[in-house]
């Protein structure tokens, strides 16, 4: 049918190496997600703080993260920061870039979620004697995280897909990096990347399924 001999065996023989890469991909994505959520909560607090400087920092973070390419952010973390004499390893640069991106997008999601939580709840908490921070921690934040659970799942999938950009700063241990190195070794471009694509697809499906099960377990009343 095609004037081309598919050699799937060659690609499948490298499957263990690629699966090791997939583990690294998931590690980076999960770590960036965990730090990203924490940072996004801090950014949300900055925005709520009423201080112009703090909310200015939060707003510029969110707008830069949302209005420039993720690849640009990773370049910035690797090459941009290097002009100050700070040299990160590709792994660190990738993590920093994705985390910056995640935090920006999640902070925006959290802001949308906050609109769905009535002010009166926080005020009721305050009048029961909670401090402002306690009211946020015990009343607002749990609901905020619950409402933005679905956007967080999407962001997690994005984080997985974004790890493939690490290769541009020299990352070669994640799934894409491993595949690219194998490609340089064997020249089975189509077969290797097809296998990588299937692995990426399965990872995202597992995450979406896991999130759905988790949501069912956590959010039952």
């Amino acid at each position: 049918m095609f004037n081309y001999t598919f050699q799937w065996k060659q690609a499948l023989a490298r499957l263990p190496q690629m699966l090791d890469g997939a583990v690294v991909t998931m590690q980076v994505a999960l770590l960036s997600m965990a730090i990203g959520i924490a940072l996004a909560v801090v950014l949300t607090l900055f925005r709520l703080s009423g201080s112009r400087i703090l909310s200015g920092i939060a707003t510029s973070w969110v707008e830069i993260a949302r209005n420039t390419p993720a690849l640009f952010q990773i370049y910035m973390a690797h090459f941009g920061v290097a002009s100050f004499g700070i040299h990160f390893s590709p792994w660190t640069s990738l993590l920093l870039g994705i985390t910056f991106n995640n935090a920006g997008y999640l902070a925006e999601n959290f802001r949308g979620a906050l609109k769905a939580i009535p002010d009166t709840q926080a005020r009721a908490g305050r009048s029961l004697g909670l401090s402002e921070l306690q009211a946020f921690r015990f009343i607002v934040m749990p609901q905020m995280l619950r409402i933005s659970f679905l956007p967080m799942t999407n962001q997690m999938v994005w984080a997985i897909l974004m790890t493939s950009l690490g290769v541009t700063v020299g990352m070669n241990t994640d799934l894409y990096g491993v595949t690219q190195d194998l490609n340089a070794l064997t020249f089975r471009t189509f077969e290797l990347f097809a296998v990588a694509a299937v692995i990426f697809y399965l990872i995202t499906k597992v995450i979406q399924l896991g999130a759905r099960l988790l949501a069912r377990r956590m959010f039952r009343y």
Partner: protein
Amino acid sequence: MFDTALSANDLIFLAKGAGMTIFVTLIAVFFGTVLGIVFGIFRYQVGPVIAAPLTFVLDVFRSIPLLIQLVLANAFLGMVLRLGLSGLTVACIVLTLYTSAYCAEIVRGAIESVPQPVRRAARSLGLSWRQDMTNIVLPLAIRVGLPSWIGLSLGVMKDSALVYVVQVTELLKSTQILITRLQEPLLLLMICGAFYFLISFPVARLGGYLEKRWTHD
């Protein structure tokens, strides 16, 4: 610190890269939207069971990194089919399909947001399917879909930074070429980032404004 080896020629080189970014984005958004509307309406009309194969294919485009899509398409069209397409063509094809996958989802969501009784009322007044679609569904659905569509278009512009992998020199790639030559990463990246930001930010604000305005009335 403020000395720079950046010359007017280099700026023109960057501007060409920026032009390429905009060109690829416009092509992908235009054809992607047309395809996305067709796919979205199709999926809505035939129901989830018959549309399952299409849903699956579109889902694949949203679950695999764009970088891999580009490499795969390039390898398939170039090495397997030996079509000898240019990198730019491959980039446009892949980005168009990528856009249509997201756009179909937006279109379907927007059509579903129009209440069924409204459409039944239109049909029982004697409007044909086409009239119902253009006069009833379109004006209502566009209010739901347009803000997300603007977000999608900006997303495609940002994602078009990845087409360097099929040898298309767009803005970020030309920046990188200059970085290699001039060794001034911070300045060049700032210029590049500022360009993306200046395009994306006002349009994103417009989307936010439309969303706010349209949800209130």
